[in-house]
């Protein structure tokens, strides 16, 4: 009996020690609570934020964005413009292998981009208009030729669609590609239990140095209150999309912290400009003057936004402020009277509910503000899939929209991906996304010229002109640029948030 007790004591002692040692020395798994499952883990064939987040840990691009949207060399160590701008030459990192042992080289780069521009993937349309061909010069040098001198090519290569994956894996997996991604990144894919979690393990041979955590577990927690609870209990180290109301509590608690970063996403009221009375620029300006953006940001978003003065967010390359419209209901009434609507008018106003932070609440407040100046907006909440079909799968004659709330974030990080799809006169729905049906040759000209301009300063000047035109014509009523709120445990460091709404934990450390 005595003997047995001694063994038990020893066993308990060993157990306690191993737990104690385990929590000090050995790298731990980091748990990230996301709101949804990834959809498809194939870079050029995904468009959702969670898939891209996972992929940016498993794969590298030739170049990547940092938190200020600067370019950072990744699989390309250097690059130069070829000739008069017909392409870029990339010098590739040597000695890198994919997680499946395949060597990373120029052929792998060519294989990835050929697959996109010759295929029919969800992001083919993003890259095919620019990339003409990819030529292998030697094992670690490629030249990417574009259809015309294209100034923003690096932005497109830093895009999530351009992450490089193993050609062997693509060949072997066939139709199932997108379930088991293979890249060169700091973490290798481990397991995906759809609806529950996805795990990655640290790649000890990563060219940028081994990660300081043993792996990452992305856990699917759809309910935001539950995510916050999980952060408080320590079940999750990092949680995305923390509701603003929870921020003070998490900041006050000892174990938790909140990180805030600007997003490139601008929330706006779109106006269908060929419908009366929105065809009158004075009316559109009046709507802009009627909205108190400071109040929306302060009261509805609890400060987690920035009042917008352009369709483009400040961190987007090419952003320019043409001054914006100050809140001035008197001026709005004057403009309405001048336009021939001294008693205001009735108008339809569409809004989603739950798609963007406080979208419906924002619309309610805008409705109130419009009522102040005499505009009687009939607010209609529409379910998301129906919403985007009603906006984008119609044409100029059949659209039933008048005012609508929407958000847009250029996933390439530069102005072209706002201005061209949303303001070009040849991109009306159903071909493109210009759902306000605004057409202005002067604006088209600037957008096209900027796209072909390789000198960054000249390009910025063109974008400034473009944003001035949009401001004067009051095509939209931009409301605010969103801010991202991420909760982290206080003992976790090295979490970074990209303005393209991606949370990276590659360099995370658990103290």
């Amino acid at each position: 009996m005595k003997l047995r007790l001694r063994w038990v004591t020893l066993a308990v002692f060993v157990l306690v020690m191993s737990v104690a040692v385990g929590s000090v020395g050995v790298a731990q798994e980091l748990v990230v609570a996301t709101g949804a499952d990834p959809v498809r883990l194939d870079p050029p064939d995904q468009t959702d934020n969670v898939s891209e987040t996972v992929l940016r840990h498993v794969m590298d691009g030739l170049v990547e964005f940092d938190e200020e949207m600067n370019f950072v060399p990744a699989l390309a160590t250097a690059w130069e413009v070829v000739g008069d701008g017909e392409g870029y030459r990339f010098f590739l990192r040597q000695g890198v292998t994919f997680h499946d042992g395949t060597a990373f080289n120029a052929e792998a780069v060519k294989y990835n981009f050929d697959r996109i521009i010759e295929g029919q993937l969800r992001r083919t349309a993003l890259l095919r208009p620019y990339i003409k061909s990819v030529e292998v010069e030697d094992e670690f040098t490629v030249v990417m030729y574009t259809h015309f001198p294209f100034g923003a090519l690096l932005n497109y290569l830093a895009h999530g669609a351009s992450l490089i994956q193993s050609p062997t894996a693509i060949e072997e997996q066939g139709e199932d590609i997108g379930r088991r991604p293979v890249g060169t990144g700091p973490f290798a894919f481990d397991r995906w239990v759809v609806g529950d979690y996805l795990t990655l393990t640290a790649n000890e041979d990563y060219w940028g140095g081994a990660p300081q955590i043993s792996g990452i577990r992305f856990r699917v927690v759809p309910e935001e209150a539950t995510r916050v609870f999980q952060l408080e209990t320590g079940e999750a180290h990092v949680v995305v999309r923390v509701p603003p109301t929870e921020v003070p509590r998490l900041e006050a608690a000892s174990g938790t912290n909140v990180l805030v970063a600007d997003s490139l996403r601008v929330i706006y009221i779109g106006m269908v400009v060929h419908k009366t009375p929105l065809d009158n620029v004075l009316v559109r300006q009046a709507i802009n003057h009627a909205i108190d953006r400071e109040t929306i940001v302060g009261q509805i978003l609890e400060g987690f936004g920035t009042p917008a003065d352009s369709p483009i967010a400040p961190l987007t390359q090419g952003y320019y402020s043409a001054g914006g419209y100050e809140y001035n209901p008197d001026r709005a009434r004057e403009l309405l009277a001048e336009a021939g609507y001294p008693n205001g008018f009735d108008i339809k106003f569409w809004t989603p509910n739950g798609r963007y932070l406080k979208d419906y609440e924002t619309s309610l407040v805008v409705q109130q503000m419009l009522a102040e100046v005499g505009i009687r907006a009939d607010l209609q909440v529409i379910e998301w899939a129906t919403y985007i079909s009603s906006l984008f799968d119609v044409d100029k004659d059949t659209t039933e929209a008048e005012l609508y709330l929407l958000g847009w974030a250029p996933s390439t990080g530069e102005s072209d991906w706002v201005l061209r799809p949303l303001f070009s006169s040849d991109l009306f729905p159903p071909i493109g996304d210009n759902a306000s049906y605004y057409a202005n040759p002067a604006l088209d000209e600037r957008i096209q010229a900027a796209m072909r301009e390789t000198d960054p300063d000249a390009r910025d000047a063109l974008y400034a002109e473009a944003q001035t035109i949009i401001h004067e014509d009051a095509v939209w009523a931009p409301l605010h640029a969103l801010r991202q709120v991420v909760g982290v445990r206080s003992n976790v460091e090295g979490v970074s948030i990209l303005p393209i709404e991606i949370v990276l934990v590659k360099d995370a450390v658990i103290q």
Partner: protein
Amino acid sequence: MSQYFIRRLLTLIPVLIGVLVVTFIIIHLTPGDPARMVAGMDADAATVAAIREQLGLNRPLPVQFVSYVSNVLRGDFGRSFHTGEQVRNEIAWRYLNTLLLAVVGVSVATVIGIVAGGISARFPHSWLDSAAMMVALIGISAPVFWIGLVFMYIFGVQLRILPTGGSGTWQHLVLPALTLGLALAGMIARMTRSSLLEVLGQDYIRTSKAYGFSANVLVFRYALRNAILPVITVVGLQLGYSLAGAVLTETVFAWPGLGRLVVGSIFTRDYPVIQAGLLLVAFTFAFVNFLVDMLYALVDPRIRFD
């Protein structure tokens, strides 16, 4: 008897065919374009059109229907529009999770419900009765997600004895099952109470009482057996209901169940997943009802389906 069983089983077939046809029509009548949802908001028309073709959505509806039905008959439910994964694989594990949650949740509900309802009927119009019926009322009327969050806060955040969400261990099952169980217990408790009170008013009970049987024996041994039939019906219905209706519990507790999958697929217009999911739910619902009918025969020897 066995003939009746087989006849009942065969009636499941037209039910399933009906579900198949109706869901097919409804999801195709619902506005919203699956190809657009797959392509994303910023996709151009060519990409949307190409995806529509890939998914086979550009074919005439009757053609789509025939090909869908013939695939289903061969056991092929297609691939999810979004993930590209076989629907069969996507749904099987989620279904087992939901089944687990539903069975445990309904068991919890049954125990709570019958005990509470029994106590109520044993001491009618006493403070015990009021208390038990009050709990039942809360269970019926309080929103599931609210109960879930309260449990999560007490047991997960404050006491730290149970995980707040996810799956994998039995501990993960406790809070969701309790939440679902409490929500369903109310109905069972009320049904048990009223059914028991009705039986307790009958002559044979009075006679038994006169013979000197104790009240406990009367209520829980003799009356309950006769009062249990309507309760079984309710339990069966609730089991069927929680297969699809546990979606709120699943969402709050991040439980990877079928309800969450199907509701998410409705929002993204993932037709193959919606269809297979609803078919499975309908089948289970009908099958559980079938089992309940069979159970009647076991519980009440007077019932013989000849």
